[in-house]
C-alpha cells in the first residue's frame, strides 16, 4: 500500500467498516492482523493495551481505532482512522434506514440476518482467541480470564467492576 500512513489507515479501516458484522468485537482480529502483523504499526502488547483502554473508556468500543490511529500518526491519524471506520457504515445506515420498511419483512432480509449471526459469532470467538494469546501469557492471567468468563456468563454485573478487579490484580504484579 501507499507509504503515507494516513492513506493506509483510511483504506484499511474504511474496508473493514463494511465487513465488521457484529461490531467492534468482530473486527478485532482483522485490526490486529493489519496493525501488528502486516503493517507493524504497533507491538502485540501495545495492541492489547489499546484494547484495554477502549474497554474502560466510555462510548462505543469501536473507539479502539482512534487509539490505533493516534499511535500511527498522531491527531490526524486518530481523525482519519475514526472517520474511515464510521463513515462508510454510517452512510449505508442512512440510506438503508429510508427503505427499511419496504424489505424488513422480506424473506431474503431475514435470511441475510440469520446467516450472518454464526459468522459474527466465529469472528468474536476469534477476537477472544487473538487477545488471549497476547494477554494470557502466564497462569494468573489465564485464571483471571477464566473466572471473568464464568462471572460474565452467569451474572449481569457491570463490566466496570470486573475491569477494576482485573486492573487491581494486575497492579499486584502477578501477571
Amino acid at each position, binding site marked *: 500500500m501507499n507509504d503515507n500512513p494516513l492513506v493506509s489507515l483510511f483504506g484499511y479501516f474504511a474496508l473493514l467498516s463494511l465487513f465488521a458484522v457484529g461490531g467492534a468485537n468482530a473486527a478485532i482480529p482483522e485490526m490486529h492482523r493489519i496493525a501488528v502483523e502486516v503493517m507493524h504499526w504497533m507491538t502485540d502488547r501495545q495492541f492489547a493495551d489499546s484494547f484495554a483502554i477502549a474497554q474502560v473508556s466510555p*462510548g462505543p468500543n469501536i473507539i479502539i481505532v482512534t487509539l490505533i490511529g493516534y499511535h500511527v500518526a498522531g491527531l490526524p491519524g486518530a481523525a482519519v482512522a475514526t472517520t474511515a471506520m464510521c463513515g462508510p457504515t454510517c452512510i449505508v445506515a442512512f440510506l438503508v434506514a429510508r427503505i427499511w420498511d419496504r424489505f424488513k419483512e422480506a424473506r431474503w432480509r431475514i435470511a441475510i440476518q*440469520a446467516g450472518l449471526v454464526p459468522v459474527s459469532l466465529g469472528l468474536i470467538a476469534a477476537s477472544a482467541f487473538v487477545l488471549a494469546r497476547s494477554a494470557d501469557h502466564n497462569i494468573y492471567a489465564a485464571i483471571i480470564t477464566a473466572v471473568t468468563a464464568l462471572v460474565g*456468563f452467569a451474572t449481569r454485573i457491570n463490566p466496570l467492576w470486573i475491569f477494576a*478487579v482485573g486492573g487491581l490484580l494486575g497492579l499486584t504484579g502477578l501477571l
Partner: protein
Amino acid sequence: MSATAAPSPVRPTLSELFRAFAVVSVSGFGGALPWARRKIVEQKHWMTAEEFNEAFALSQFLPGPNVVNFSVVFGSRFGGAPGAAVALAGLMGPPLVIVTVLAVLYARFGDLEILSRVLAGITAAAVGLLIAVVAKMAAPMFRKRWDWAPLVAIAAFIGVAIMQWPLPLVFVALAPVSVALAWVTR
C-alpha cells in the same frame, strides 16, 4: 410491525438529539444500548419500546458498530441528514475527546511498568468477558440437535484466528454460503 401501539408523539429537537446521545455515550460503559433504551423510551418517550426494537433490529442488520448505526438511524428518522449528523456527533464527540486524552497519556506513559501491569489485568478480564459473550451467543445455536450454524461459526473462527486470513476474504467466502443455508433451511 403491527399498528397496535400508536407512534410516540414526542419529537426531539436537534439540540435535544445531540444532548441525549452525548449523555448515552458517556454513561454507556460496556454497551450503550441499555442506556439508549432508558433515555429514548422510558425518559423522553421519543419512541415506543416496539419502535426502538425495530430501529435496533435495523442497526444490527447493518455492518459496523451497532450503536453508531443506531444513532444514524434514529437521528435521520427525526431530523433527516442533519438529525443523523447531530446524533452521531453526540454519540462520538465526548468519547473521542476522552480517548484522545488517554491516547496522549499512553504515548507518554505507556512504558511505565505500573501502567502496563494494570492494563494487562484489564485485558485479561476483558478477554474473559468476550468469551462470555461468545458463550451466550453460542448457547442457543448449539442447543439445536444438528445444524449448519455452528459449522459456519467454526469455519469463520478457523479462517480468521488460526489461518489468519484477511477478514474480507473469509467473509466473502463464508457469508453467501451461510445466508444460502439460512434461506433453504427455514
